[in-house]
Every structure is written in structure tokens, then in C-alpha cells.
């Protein structure tokens, strides 16, 4: 048993601390130790993106990050997007545009779109499609997801 390490970071704005083996993957720390089961596991070869979280203002696949690498990091997951009882524009838009069906890819998809819009507030359809190309969905065929991200972009722009 390699020496376990204490790791502390901010999760959705709250400081947390876990003691983990170096080999523990961030997705497992979030889901098993910190009760954040929003991000999901869909593969083991870093392809599907269902585990996407926002780490230090980057969209990352939590299944391919070691928790020990997150000392002092700022992590946002789907559970952190609703602020003060108000849904984020993306959460509202995914609902209004039927951008989800089984919901399994939705947490990773919305968390990725969150960072995409931060970096590009006025994306074209092609920007959105390549922007979410790291997130697989098996139910929607992406068309309504793209509409949802476009709608959220307009809402955020209007909110100024």
C-alpha cells in the first residue's frame, strides 16, 4: 500500500480534504469519498467525457487525473452550477431544448459547455460541436444539445 497522502482542494466553493493512495483517480474520490455522484464513469480509456469536471478553469476528464494532483485546486462539478437556488443558464437551456434523455452524459456535457462558454461567449454551431467533441452522448444525437448551448449563450449575453 503506497503511502497515503492528505489532499485538500476546493469543491464547488467549499474546502474539502481527503486521504488517498497516489493511484486513486479523482472521479473515485469525488463519487466515493465526497458523495458527488454527478460526474459519471462511462469508459476506462479516457474517451467518453461523462466524468468531465472543471479543474482550475479547465475541462478535464476526472477519470484521467490523480486526486494527489489536485492539491490546492479549484474544482467545480455539475452539483456546483446552481447558485443561490437559481439554475445556471445552461441547466435551464438543456431542460427547455430537450438536450437530455437518459441524463448519464448530462453532468459532464453541461460542465464542459460551462467552460466552453466562459472561453467563447458567442460560439458558432461548429465551435459548439467541436467544443463538446470530448463528450459522447448515445441518446440525443447532439442536435438539441447544440441548441441548448446556443440558447444558454444568448441568455448569458442578455444577462450581461
Amino acid at each position, binding site marked *: 500500500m*503506497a503511502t497515503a497522502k492528505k489532499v485538500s482542494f476546493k469543491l464547488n466553493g467549499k474546502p474539502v480534504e481527503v486521504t488517498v493512495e*497516489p*493511484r486513486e*483517480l479523482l472521479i473515485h474520490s469525488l463519487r466515493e469519498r465526497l458523495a458527488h455522484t454527478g460526474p459519471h464513469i462511462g469508459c476506462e480509456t479516457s474517451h467518453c467525457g461523462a466524468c468531465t469536471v472543471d479543474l482550475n478553469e*479547465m475541462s478535464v476528464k476526472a477519470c484521467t487525473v490523480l486526486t494527489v*494532483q489536485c492539491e490546492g485546486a479549484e474544482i467545480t462539478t455539475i452539483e456546483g452550477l446552481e447558485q443561490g437556488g437559481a439554475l445556471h443558464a445552461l441547466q435551464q437551456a438543456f431542460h427547455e431544448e430537450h438536450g437530455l434523455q437518459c441524463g448519464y452524459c448530462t453532468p459532464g456535457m453541461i460542465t464542459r459547455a460551462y467552460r466552453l462558454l466562459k472561453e467563447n461567449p458567442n460560439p458558432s454551431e461548429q465551435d459548439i460541436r467541436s467544443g463538446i*467533441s470530448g463528450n459522447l452522448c448515445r441518446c440525443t444525437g447532439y442536435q438539441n444539445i447544440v441548441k441548448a448551448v446556443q440558447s444558454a449563450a444568448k441568455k448569458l449575453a442578455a444577462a450581461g
Partner: protein
Amino acid sequence: MIPAGFDYHAPRSVADAVKLLGELGPEAKLLAGGHSLLPMMKLRFAEPGHLVDLGRIAELRGISEAGKEIRIGAMTTEHELLRSKLLAEKVPLLVEGAGWIADPQVRYKGTIGGDISHGDPANDQPALMLALEASFVLTGPKGERVVKADGYFLGLYSTQLAEDEILTQIRIPLPAPGSGWSYQKLKRKTGDFATAATAVMLQMKGKSVASVAIALTNAGPTVLKARDAEAYLKGKAIDDASLNEAARLAMKICQPTPDQRGDAEYKVAMCGEMTRRALQAAHARAKG
């Protein structure tokens, strides 16, 4: 899904990292972006005893212009390359190339140094480096040495990087103004390795080629430089005939490995096709 156990080290300087590598020996592997090594560990194909994470070493990041070359820290991520104004202006080939690698999430973590030194023939950076005539700064117990990209790649998972050395910086001579550039990559879907890909840097003098560099991804056990095609094109105009011949010469050196992307016949043909398209695109961008 679950890697085997290992000890984790996160040195804060290159010197510390080199010292650690020396102490830990062959059981230690460098962890850069982790998107080639961690998946192998999760499938238990790789079970290193120690991981030396280079993510906390500030001196390994950053993109700057120094004299007549661009210097890039080995731990600079593909995402940072994509968003660099300096590169967009001075080395646009690298920006285009980085955009073809994997998907957005992988590009936030994957690093230029990791891609160069991993040693898989499917990595994209090696071809870009050859086309740009880059060189690499390798830092080891005996200090730094600078090695040309051309000749750095030896074989499958085998480069000039010794077991106790770290690739710390990439140096790219400023491309001549008005040079054309292109990285054409054929793949089954976003995120896939190249079925075939070609990087081209091209300088024109009037209607004829002054100099050209052509490098092929996933066409053999390592990145390949199409020297015969380069030599042939010197002094020639870019037209159907010269493109056909250049493509043919490039195809002659290809020894791709068959897999689900295609058999050798298809892959060799695609090496030719990507070479043709890269030359055409570079020519369109070049100002003679």
C-alpha cells in the same frame, strides 16, 4: 480501470526532478499530461513503481520568443498552444497541428513535451517538430544538451531521451516570413489517432519551391521525413504533376502497421493523399 499502486513525487524544479529520476532508476516514469500513461496504467499494461509529476515545475511552462527562435516549455499544454497569439502569428503550423490532437479535455492536460517523448508513432507533435526543424533541450544529471528533432526519434517507444533525462524545452527557429504551412490529418472520428497525417512547411521563390519539409505521422515505427520528396520538389512549381510525384515518393518510405483504421495498402495511399493535400494547402498559404 484501476491502476496498480505506485509512489507519487511532485518536484518543484527541474533539478529536483532530475535528481529524483537518478535516485529512483528505471522503475520511475515521468508524468506529464498523463493522457498516454494513465490509460496504460489503468489497463495494467504499465505498472511503474514511481511517478514523477512534472506538473508543478513552473520553469517548464511558457511560450516566448528569444532571438530568432520560439521557445516552448515542455509542459506547455496543447490548449495553451492553441490559444497562443505569439504562435498564431509566428508558428501557425503548431496551432493548426495542436487543434487536431484528441479532444478539448485531453488538450487541456496533454503537453507538447509528453507528446514528443511518448514514442508512439501515432503522436502528432513529432511530425510538426520535424517540419519546423525544431530541436529539443534534454536535461540530465550532466546538465543540458540540445538535440535536433531530426534524428531524435529512433524507433517504437524509443527516442534519444535517456532514462535519467527530462525533455525541458522545445526550440523552433522562426519560420521564414511568407512560408506556407499545413497539417492534414485523416482520422475516423474526432479524438482518434491518425489513419495518416502529413505536416508541411514550404517556402516559395516566385513560382518554384525554395525549400520544403514534409513529415509523416503513423506511417512507420516512428515519425518519417520524406527526404526524397523534399529533394524532388526543390526548384519545381507546385502543380498536379509535381504533387503526384511528391506523393509517390512519400508513399515509398511508408511502412504503416495494419489495424482497424486500415490495411497497409490503404494507409500508404492515405499517406500520399495527406501529403498531396498538405502541400496544396501550404502552397495556397505561401507568399512567393
